[in-house]
């Protein structure tokens, strides 16, 4: 399993989205998120985007007030994950139009759905923005 979890966290360290590809209990999740957020948010822009934590590698990138954090195992290609994060942001941008924290808060389910289109079972399955968004648009039309 390449990707273990995807987190979106704001500057204050509040989780805005959490997607796990392996089962963790709520307590484990809370502890893990706390540790990671503490580690990553303390770093500045000039430092690299990779942090080792427990047996994960965290690849993270900051967009405005939101941090996108992806936990991967050691085999994973860090730069590809950075590209993945960027793709995710671009996709959300295209859908919401200049995406911001509030968009994700109020459309959490949609954000999850986009992620599910892109990642399955911890590996990236879809990288075309049009392909990712077409089912969502269809569903919106239908409802």
């Amino acid at each position: 399993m390449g990707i273990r979890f995807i987190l979106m966290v704001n500057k204050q360290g509040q989780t805005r989205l959490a997607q796990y590809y392996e089962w963790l209990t709520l307590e484990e999740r809370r502890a893990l998120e706390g540790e990671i957020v503490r580690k990553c948010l303390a770093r500045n822009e000039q430092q690299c985007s990779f942090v080792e934590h427990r047996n994960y590698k965290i690849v993270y990138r900051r967009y405005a007030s939101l941090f996108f954090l992806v936990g991967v195992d050691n085999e994973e290609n860090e730069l590809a994950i950075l590209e993945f994060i960027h793709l995710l942001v671009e996709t959300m941008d295209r859908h919401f139009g200049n995406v911001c924290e509030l968009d994700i808060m109020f459309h959490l389910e949609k954000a999850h759905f986009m992620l599910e289109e892109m990642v399955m079972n911890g590996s990236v399955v879809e990288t075309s923005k049009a392909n990712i968004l077409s089912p969502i648009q269809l569903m919106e039309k239908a409802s």
Partner: protein
Amino acid sequence: MSGPSLMDSLFQRSLEDLIKGLRQQLIGEQAFISKSLEEIRKEIKSTDLSTKSTALLKLSYLSNLHFQDMSFAAFPALEVLSSPRFSHKKIAYHAISLSFHDSTPVLLLITNHLRKDLNSTNEFEVSLSLQCLSRIANVDLARDLTPEVFTLLSSNKLYVRKRAVAVVLRVFEKYPDSVRVCFKRLVENLENSDPQVLSAVVGVFSELACKDPRSYLPLAPEFYKILVDSKNNWISIKVLKIFSKLAPLEPRLAKRVVEPICDLMRNTGAKSLLFECIRTVVTSLSENESAVRLAVGKVREFLEDEDPNLKYLGLQALRIVAEKHLWAVSENKEVVIKSLSDADPNIKIESLRLVMAMVSEHNVSEISRVLVNYAIKSDPVFCNEILGSILSTCSRNLYEIVVDFDWYVSLLGEMSRIPHCQMGDEIENQLIDIGLRVKDVRPELVRVARDLLIDPALLGNSFLHGVLSAAAWASGEYVEFSRNPLELMEALLQPRTSLLPPPIRAIYIQSAFKVLVFCLHTCFMRGKSIAPSASLDNLPAGVSASASYESFDDFSVENGADVAVVHGQTCASAPITKESIVNILNMVELALGPLLGSHDVEVHERARNLLGFVDLTKPEILNSSIHENRDSEGKRVETSKIIKLMHDAFSKELGPVSSSAQGKVSLPDGLVLKENLGDLEMICGDIEPPSSNSFSFGSPYEEEKEGLSFSNLQIRDDNEQSNESTSLLAAHRKRHGLYYLSSGKSEMISNDYPPASDHTLQGDINDNADDLVKLTAESLIPKRKPKHGKPRPVVVKLDEVDEKPVAMKQPESRDDSLSGAVRDVLFGSEDIPPTSSQSNLSNSSKRKGKEKQHTDPHSKESAVGDGNSSSRRRKDRSQGKERRRKSPRKNDEERKDADQKEKKKSSGGRHKSRQRAEEPLKVPAQTPVIPDFLL
């Protein structure tokens, strides 16, 4: 509690209301959440599916972002799932993938829902249920839904097919037997031209290949084709990952893929793909010189890039290269050393690891010197990181890379003086370990120990207490190598030892005992041979190791006349005179007297021992020094007898003890170790047991140093001591002014000493980096000829403990059965006709064609019979197969056998297939282990 009324449903809060409420925080977040949860609990019982699903949606939100438990909603989620409306289904699937796991009780009930949706004509419903299956599948679900997944693997809707492919990984993991059903369809998808499906398939194979690469060697031609043809970077990266696993297993494959990978490396613009190529080359193709050279060139570009990400990854790649190609590191040494002072701690640590990877016995002292200088100037965290890695690297494999132990011991001493050092415990262990194992280093060890002990500033640093206890132990145990035992005595008894915790203090006292006995013994043995009247003259001290002794004629010899004398030269020892002995005895009485009231048993007892000994010997010594008459001669002999006895007791050398030594002691007859001690507990029930850590003995050969204290009460007998200690302190300060601060404005000292060594921290880091580069200019290149002044001393080794522990075999039954199943499919039933060894990649497609012929009828048949496909398939399997399925244990054994055979006839060898062993006539006589597609 009744269900919600119609009104409740009408005025139900939507998710949006919930989020807005959370943001407004009128009543505080926690209060608002628990209020909403209460509402949700009510709403979720509603019979109206819309109300229920909204409640579920809100609950999912709270669970995802606010860590609220949603396990109570498992059954309602299933109810919503059964709704005909897609929007309800979506909410239910979302909730289920977030909250269900292997031990969710209602998991069994979901199978039919999933099956229904998997067979739905709405591709989005199918996709939702596949997505859900990929998150929650357990053994039962995987087994029951295998037929559906199998069908979807060849769905003509690409959207569905790629999801089915992705879900296969989880199904295989949970239920390995599904491999027999689905594997061929999965392989067929490898030839799919659609990038969506291909990306999913390659992703699955790269995960599978991580676990057991050997099973997937036969698919190498397909992967090769993708590698050459792919235009999609994501796919290329995954394929490269597969090859980095396969290439080490098959040298011919490695030769084959080097060219395309190098081409990719030269031409690609994507950094991620470039990095994957580099990583593949340095991990798996490191035999190929030109490819490695190319990769190292690219790594250099990474290292010189502004982007910290590339720098970090460059350093990582370099560390992998370093294992086999040290030249790559020395080519880039400037960058590496400069990175030690990078602004990013992660980059610093990475470059530190790289530096440590280069350490060998030729350059260990230079590199350590550079790093220690570096540690002095670093922040506390990184400083300890550096010290820790030096300690672990040097002690690796019983100090394998250390040749000059004198150097190493003094380095340990130096490291413990670094202000930020927190590695005291590790240094302590190593000092004692080296002292026990390496005989030749003991004089230097005592010298280092003396320097540590005599410095009063160190006593205030609690991180150093471990080091000090090791120093105290070493100076007592190896006192015969000391150049000035009297000085040691003073150091061990100095007033600031009251800052030490009781167990360490006990070690100090015990060491003082040893030193005292040594002094007396030397003095008396001399005294015997020379006339007693010479007692007021300076008696040459007996330092057994030294070749010659010089005597001085003044009494002030004690003030460290030999501090600067380098070891190895003839050292001038401070002579031990009657006078000085008397002084010392007084000092012992003064320092230890107050400790007789100590609450710590260990300190108390040792102090009493030492004082008792002093009481025994002191009168005699006083007598003999004032006037020597015949009468006292008899007594004198007695005293010297006692001293000799004690000396002999202490001079017996302690050797290192294997940690398994106890096991070798045979159990004496009549000793029952497992006797029930329950009765004892009843008797002692009301006695407080001592706190758990007070009995810790540590490793067996540290017995001297690990005092056992029966209470952890911190006793500061300051009140009694203050008078004595001030006078003692004054004496100490007079002698060792060197170590005291110059401004002696108050005689009474407070406990907060300045740090042991105040290095200027404001040095310009960049200047330092330049210096370091210069310093290490030679050290990174392996020296032409190590010129050791002396040969490496003997390091005592114990056979049992010091051997590397044998790697534990860890049977992974699930993975085993998974790869076993894959092998069955690829090698076993897929009876590839033994192609001629001349076949190459171009005609591998021909082989594939044949393979297809074999697989086609099979898959057609099972595609037709969806419902009972498994039974049919079983029928057309050979009998042998079935038998194997019935007896899994036997199957395992056979597999093991086969594996061994495979190993024996590794490359290009053929092995007799398992089928043959059972059903000799059905299958072609021999199947090649690896098809010869590479020649």
